[in-house]
């Protein structure tokens, strides 16, 4: 069992948790992920590592409540325990001094882009970060991102904070600006955002890395459910990734595969909310 040592409500639907998992913390690196399972009925949910503290033996996860399992996790409180927590999984980000790099984090993708930006900064890169969300309420870790970036651009879709635009607009401007000499781009966020980042950087041949969050079960290469189609064939995201060259990813196939269990995901939420009502448990998470 793994104890929740701390919980922070970053927004209505985005929660942060610090989990005691020394076996994962001792080797965790930026870019890797973990698999969490709440209890004996739970599914195995992959979440990218947002931060780690080796001395304290903790891993920080940040998640958006999108389905039954993440909603249920979001209702758990400090002191409660999670039944399974495996990792660190996948390959870490390849950190080098590339020169000037851009780190793009969209929505809950701000969480995993943070340790990457920090590591890149520590390796001597000049880091320009772009973070974006639908609105001001969904934005978090602006301060943390600012602390590890030489320049930070904040956007919201509705203009309620920062610049009113998608993350791809400032990204394009940066790439087109010859003075900046952008050597590499990292982007983590919703699949559709990563697709458009990829389309934006491809014409300029700026190497672009994305972290894919496909449907997974084991996270160890055993099921193949996480596979993604690259130019030269399929790869398993959990063992070959989760980071890939964005320009090689078949985005349409990826987006379609993410939809496969939509109906069941909705049914699970309904079933759970119904159960919560019967048991009188709070259905909406409070702040």
């Amino acid at each position, binding site marked *: 069992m793994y104890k929740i040592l701390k919980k922070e409500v970053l927004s209505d639907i985005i929660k942060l948790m610090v989990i005691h998992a020394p*076996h*994962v913390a001792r*080797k965790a690196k930026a870019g890797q992920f973990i698999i969490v*399972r709440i209890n004996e*009925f*739970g*599914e*195995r949910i992959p979440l990218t590592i947002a931060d780690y503290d080796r001395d304290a033996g903790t891993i920080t996860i940040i998640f958006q409540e999108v389905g*039954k*399992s993440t909603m249920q996790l979001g209702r758990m409180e400090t002191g409660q325990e999670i*039944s*399974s*927590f*495996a*990792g*660190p*999984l996948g390959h870490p980000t390849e950190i080098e001094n590339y020169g000037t790099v851009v780190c793009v984090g969209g929505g809950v993708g701000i969480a995993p882009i943070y340790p990457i930006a920090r590591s890149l900064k520590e390796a001597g890169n000049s880091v320009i970060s772009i973070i974006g969300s639908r609105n001001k309420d969904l934005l978090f870790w602006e301060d943390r991102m600012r602390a590890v970036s030489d320049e930070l651009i904040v956007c919201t879709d509705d203009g309620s904070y920062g610049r009113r635009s998608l993350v791809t607009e400032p990204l394009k401007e940066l790439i087109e600006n010859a003075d900046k000499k952008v050597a590499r781009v990292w982007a983590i966020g919703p699949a559709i955002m990563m697709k458009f980042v990829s389309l934006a950087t491809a014409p300029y041949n700026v190497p672009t890395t994305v972290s894919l969050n496909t449907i997974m*079960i*084991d996270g*160890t*290469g*055993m*099921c*193949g*459910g996480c*596979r*993604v*189609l690259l130019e030269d064939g*399929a790869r398993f995201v959990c*063992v070959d990734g989760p980071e890939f060259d964005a320009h090689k990813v*078949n985005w*349409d*196939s990826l987006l*379609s*595969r993410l*939809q*496969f*269990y939509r109906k*069941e*995901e909705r*049914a*699970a939420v309904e*079933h*759970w909310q119904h159960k919560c009502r019967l048991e009188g448990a709070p259905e909406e998470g409070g702040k």
Partner: protein
Amino acid sequence: MAELNQKERMKIKRHDMPNQDPLVRRRNYDEVALGYSEATAKKEAERCLQCKDPKCVQGCPVGVLIPQFIKALREGDMVKAVEWMKVKNNLPAICGRVCPQETQCEGNCILGKKGEPVAIGRLERFVGDFELAHRTCPLAKAAPTGKNAAVVGSGPSGLTCAVDLGREGHKVTLFESLHGPGGVLVYGIPEFRLPKRVVYGEINYAVECLGIDIKIDHVIGRTFTLDELLNDYDAVFLGTGAGLPSFMRIPGINLNGVMSANEFLTRVNLMKGYLFPQYDTPVKVGRKVAVIGAGNVAMDAVRCSLRLQTLHSRKTNELPGEVHMVYRRSRDEVPAREEEFHHAGEEGVIFDFLTNPVEILGDEKGNVKGMRCIRMRLGEPDKSGRRSPVPIEGSEFEMEVDTVIMALGTSPNPLVFVEAEGLERTKHGTAVADPETGRTRKMRVWAGGDVVTGAATVISAMGAGKRAAADIDKFLKGEAPWQ
């Protein structure tokens, strides 16, 4: 019963296994084979001729003392029967259910030459179930040796190795990457063939008696590397199995509705997807399912598909769909256990032999809508003596399906080889290990089971775990140093 003579014994007919009715069992996940009663088991045991040179034992990969346990059983001495069994086999309740007896012990039984062999597997299961319920043969632990061993993977090879090392007094830590132990016994083989209470019963008992420390959620190669384990343990056994699924290299494999049998079976068995939404993990089969392959894995996939379809149709009042097993060779080459093939047929699977997919077809949304297949014929025998299938030109046709499950075999998961300098592998990705001792080319590292042989059987994995444990024990006691 009075002592029978050989002639009288040979007149007794082999006793059928009571099974759940096919129409009923299509709607549930309960065990299909119900097991012999004590009376039937004793009567079946009377058939054994107690050969001086028992051929059945030669057919068993671990050499179970078959005539001895059968004799004790028919004399009504169950405690003795269990003792004989446990000399060679730690997990009889499991093997009795899943061993391919027709090619092993029973395939060799002398009675099989003229009539039907003794139902050794069913008797083994009976003895195993007795032990599970009564625990007359406790696992005793020798005085602590002060040595410790790490066992990686908790399938049949790892479990057996851990238990045997624990009995010798070594301190054993068992590392498992998933959230529970059991390996294929838990994530692959379905409840209706091997109830999980049997597997957990064996595991819990071993943990209780021997104090084996099971560390779940530990992926060796990531959480710890093999080299790190070698710093902390005197010996390491790798029983990580062959869990990496293969996909056919044909167009369309990334469409929605195409999955590996491992994914499908893991969703159903390990994650209990058939109980969705009580359990969180969904599993989906369509109305027309094609399972590619004809091994045990394929058989489990077709039978799980049938059950999911039937359960689903009872909820929605639709007619249940169809499940096809598509195999490029013919009936005679089917590698699955005979009993499973027979049960699958009874439950309504449609077999498409000598058929091979060449492309999976998708609709505009990226969902599977069909499969283009080609008919095959059996050509000349290849080097291994098996007749290899050859495509028949111009015989291509389309099959309407919405789910394609690939059960084409698996290879060892490569993660454990990460940062394991010197651990040699073959070109098939299997670990190189001595078949007698399990020693790999890397000092203080042993391996056995599917990670060495490629996908094989429960009993061969158990046997490898047992042989390795014996050698590790000698090594740890200084009797067999590493050369």
